[in-house]
C-alpha cells in the first residue's frame, strides 16, 4: 500500500463522518459565497463603456426634488458636454405588481438619449418608430424576457410619485448596457399627463472624454450656483456609490454575518476533525512504535484533514459557482438581483478558508500525538 493510499483509506474509513465533515464545510462555504455575491451585487453597481463618461445632474436638495426644464439650454452650452437628456424617474407600479416594481421607468428625450446611453443597442427601425410616436416605449431585453413581452404589447404603470398613470406600447427592445431592465419613454408624454409642470427629475449628460468628466461636473455645479435650483453634478460612479451609502449599516451587517458564518464553520469543523484523529490515537501510537517519525505522522493527519476540507470547498464553492452561473437569478429573485456573479476572488477566498480550516484542525491532534509517548498512546481508550 502506498502512502497516499494509506491516507485515503484512513480518511474514508468512517465514511459517514467523512461525508458529514465534507458536507458541513461545503454548506458553510456555499453560504459564504452566496453572502459575498449578494453583498457585491448590492454595493458594487454594474459598469459599461459609458459609465466613466456619464454625468448625472440632480437637485442639490435631494433626488426627490425636481429641476426646472429650462436648465437644458445652459447645460448644453457647457464646454466638454457631448450630449444631454432629461432623465426622470417615474417609479410606477407595473400592472400586476402590488407593492413594488423592481425595474425602473425613465422619461427621456428619445432624440437625445441615444447619445447618452451609448452602450444601448437597438434596431434602427424600432428606434425610429419610437422617436416618432410619443406613446411608445423602449424596453430592456431582461425585462422583456422576464414578462414575455413582444413588440406592440401594452405596458401600464400606476404613478406613485407622479399624479398620473402611463399607458404605453412597446416600440422595441434594447440591450448591451450594464443593466438591461429599464423602460424608456417620451418625456413629452409625462409632461402632458402631469399637467406640464416644466420640470425634470435629473439630467444625464455624456462628457466628450474621460479627462473632461471631472472638469465638466465642476462647470455644471458652478453654472447653477446661487440660483433657485442649485444642482449636484457627479459622475455615474459617484452617484451610484452615494445611492448605496444611503443603505447605511446594512452593509456592515451582512459583512459581520459573513464573519460569524466563517467563524462558526471553523469552530465546528475543527472540533469534528480533531475528534476523528483523537479516535485513532491508538493506531497512531502503533505507527509511532513501528518507527514512523513525528513529522510523518503530522503529514498523515494534515493530509487527511486538508483533503477533507478541500473536498468540502470544491463541493460548496464550486457548487455555488455552477449553480449561480446556470440559474436565472433575475426571475428567481423577482428582478432584485441582476448578475449574481461568483468572482474568482471569492472562489479564492473560499479555498483559502478551507485550507486554513484543514491546517487548524490538524494542529491540536498533531500536537498531542507528538507529545504523547507510545506507551501512553497505546493505553488511550478514547
Amino acid at each position, binding site marked *: 500500500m502506498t502512502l497516499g493510499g494509506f491516507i485515503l483509506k484512513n480518511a474514508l474509513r468512517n465514511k459517514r463522518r467523512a461525508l458529514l465533515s465534507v458536507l458541513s464545510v461545503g454548506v458553510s462555504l456555499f453560504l459564504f459565497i452566496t453572502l459575498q455575491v449578494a453583498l457585491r451585487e448590492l454595493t458594487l453597481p454594474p459598469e459599461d463603456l459609458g459609465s466613466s463618461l456619464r454625468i448625472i445632474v440632480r437637485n442639490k*436638495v435631494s433626488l426627490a426634488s425636481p429641476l426646472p426644464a429650462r436648465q437644458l439650454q445652459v447645460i448644453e452650452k457647457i464646454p466638454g458636454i457631448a450630449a444631454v437628456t432629461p432623465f426622470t424617474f417615474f417609479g410606477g407600479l407595473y400592472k400586476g405588481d402590488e407593492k413594488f416594481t423592481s425595474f425602473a421607468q425613465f422619461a427621456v428625450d428619445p432624440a437625445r438619449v441615444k447619445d447618452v446611453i451609448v452602450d444601448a443597442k437597438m434596431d434602427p427601425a424600432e428606434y425610429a418608430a419610437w422617436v416618432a410616436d410619443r406613446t411608445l416605449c423602449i424596453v430592456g431585453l431582461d425585462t422583456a424576457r422576464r414578462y414575455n413581452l413582444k413588440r406592440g404589447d401594452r405596458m401600464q404603470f400606476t404613478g406613485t410619485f407622479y399624479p398620473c398613470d402611463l399607458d404605453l406600447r412597446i416600440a422595441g427592445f434594447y440591450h448591451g448596457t450594464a443593466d438591461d431592465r429599464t423602460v424608456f419613454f417620451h418625456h413629452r408624454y409625462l409632461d402632458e399627463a402631469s399637467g406640464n409642470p416644466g420640470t425634470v427629475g435629473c439630467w444625464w449628460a455624456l462628457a466628450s472624454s474621460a479627462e473632461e468628466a471631472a472638469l465638466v461636473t465642476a462647470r455644471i455645479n458652478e453654472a447653477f450656483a446661487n440660483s433657485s435650483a442649485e444642482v449636484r453634478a457627479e459622475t455615474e460612479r459617484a452617484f451610484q456609490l452615494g445611492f448605496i451609502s444611503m443603505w*447605511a449599516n446594512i452593509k456592515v451587517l451582512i459583512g459581520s454575518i459573513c464573519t460569524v*458564518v466563517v467563524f462558526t464553520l471553523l469552530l465546528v469543523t475543527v472540533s469534528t476533525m480533531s475528534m476523528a484523529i483523537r479516535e485513532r490515537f491508538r493506531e497512531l501510537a502503533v505507527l509511532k512504535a513501528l518507527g514512523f517519525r513525528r513529522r510523518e505522522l503530522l503529514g498523515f493527519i494534515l493530509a487527511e484533514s486538508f483533503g477533507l476540507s478541500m473536498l468540502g470547498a470544491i463541493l460548496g464553492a464550486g457548487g455555488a459557482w455552477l449553480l449561480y452561473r446556470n440559474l436565472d437569478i433575475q426571475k428567481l429573485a423577482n428582478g432584485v438581483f441582476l448578475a449574481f456573479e461568483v468572482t474568482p476572488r471569492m472562489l479564492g477566498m473560499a479555498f483559502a478558508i478551507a485550507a486554513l480550516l484543514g491546517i487548524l484542525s490538524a494542529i491540536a491532534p498533531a500536537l498531542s500525538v507528538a507529545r504523547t509517548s507510545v506507551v501512553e498512546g497505546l493505553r488511550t481508550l478514547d
Partner: protein
Amino acid sequence: MPAVFTLLVQSFLGLTALGIVAVFLTAHFSAVPVKYNLKSVFIRWRSTVATVVGIALVVLVYVLLQSLAVGIEKSNASTGDPRNILIARKGATAESSSLVTRAQLRTLQYFEEIERNAAGDPVISADVLTLASLPRKGQGGEANVLLRGVTPRGMELRPQVHLVAGRWFSPGRREIVVSRKLAGRFANFDVGDTFKTGPTTLTVVGWLDGSGSAYDSECWMDADESRSVFEREMYSTFLVRPKSPEAATNLIRRIESDKRLQLRAESETGYYQKQTLTAAPIKWLAGFLALTMSIGAVFAAMNTMYAAVGARTREIGTLRVLGFHRRNVIATFLLEGILLAMLGGALGCLISLKWNGYTTATLSVESFSETVFSFTITPTLAAQGMFFAAALGFWGTLLPAVRAARLPVISALKAL
C-alpha cells in the same frame, strides 16, 4: 408555490415540536436519570463546547436579524393615533410621494364628519413632506432626511412627539426641530447649528423625540415655511380627527367614493402598519440564513453525536442489560442532544441581548429616507431562538440515537 412551501415548513416545524415533546415525555417516564446525560456531556467537554458555541452563533445570527425586522415593524406599529385618519393621493405609496391640493383642503374643511376645535375650526392638518440630502457625521456620505412641514394642529394630532431640547420653531422663520435620534447620525444637527439645503440655510432650534415611533426619523418645520423654502405649490397629506369612530368610517367611505377628490383615506395607525417593504428583505435574509446555517449545524451536531455514541457503546450495552428499552436509549440520547443544543440556544439569546435597544438605521424603501430603529428582542423572538436550537439538537441527534438503540447488546458489551 409559496403556499405549498409555507405548508411544508409549518408541517416540518410541527413534526419537530412533536418529536421534542415525545422525547421529554419518554425521558420523564423511562427514568434513565438526566444526571447520566449531564455527566456524559461534560466528560467530552471539548467537542461539547464546540457544538454549544456553534449552535449559539447560529441562533445569535437568527435572533439578531429577526430583531432588526421586529425593530422596524415595532417602530411602524407604534406610530400614530388610532383616532386619526390619514388622507393621501390615490396611488401614492408613501406620504412623501403623495401630493394634495389646496382645493382639496377647502373641500375637506366642510365635511361635517371632522371634529371642530374650541375656535370652531375643523381639526385638519395639511403637511408638506420633502426629502433633503444631508451629510452624515464623519465619513458616512450623504443620506436623505424626511422633513415634515407641520401645522399647529398637526402637532396636536401627534401627541407622541415632544420636545426634548431647545424650543419649537417659530412660524415664518427658517427654523427646524430635528429628531434626537437623527442628531446622533447627521452633521450639524446640534441645537444652534445651521445647515444648507439647496440655496436655503436652516437653523436647528430644538430636538424632538417620537417615543419610538416612525416620527423619530423626521425633522419638523413650519408647513408654510417649508412650502416657500422648497417652492411647493401643493401639500403632501392631510391628517384629520373625525368626531367619532362612526364618523371615521363614514369619512373614509365618503372620501374613497368621491371620484372628484382622487384621494385615499385610512386610519393613521393602519397606514404605518402597512409599511413592511423595508423589513421584508431582512426577514427573508434571516430565514435563508437560518435554513442554510442550520443544515451545516445539523451535520456538525450529527458528527459529534455519532462520535459520542461510538465512544459509549459499552455504556449503551450496559443500559440495555439493566433492562432499559430501545426507546429509552433513543430518548436519552435525544434528550442529551436537545439539552446541549438548548444550552447553545440560551447562550445565543443571552449574547444577543447585548444589542437589545441598540439604535441603528437604514434606508426606508417607502419614504426613501433614513429611518432609525432599534434592535428589539422580544420574548417571542427568544422563544423562537430556543425552539430553533432544540430543533437543531433533535435533528442532529435523531440518527445517531437510532444507531445507538440498534446496537446488538452482546457485541456492545464486548466493545472496547
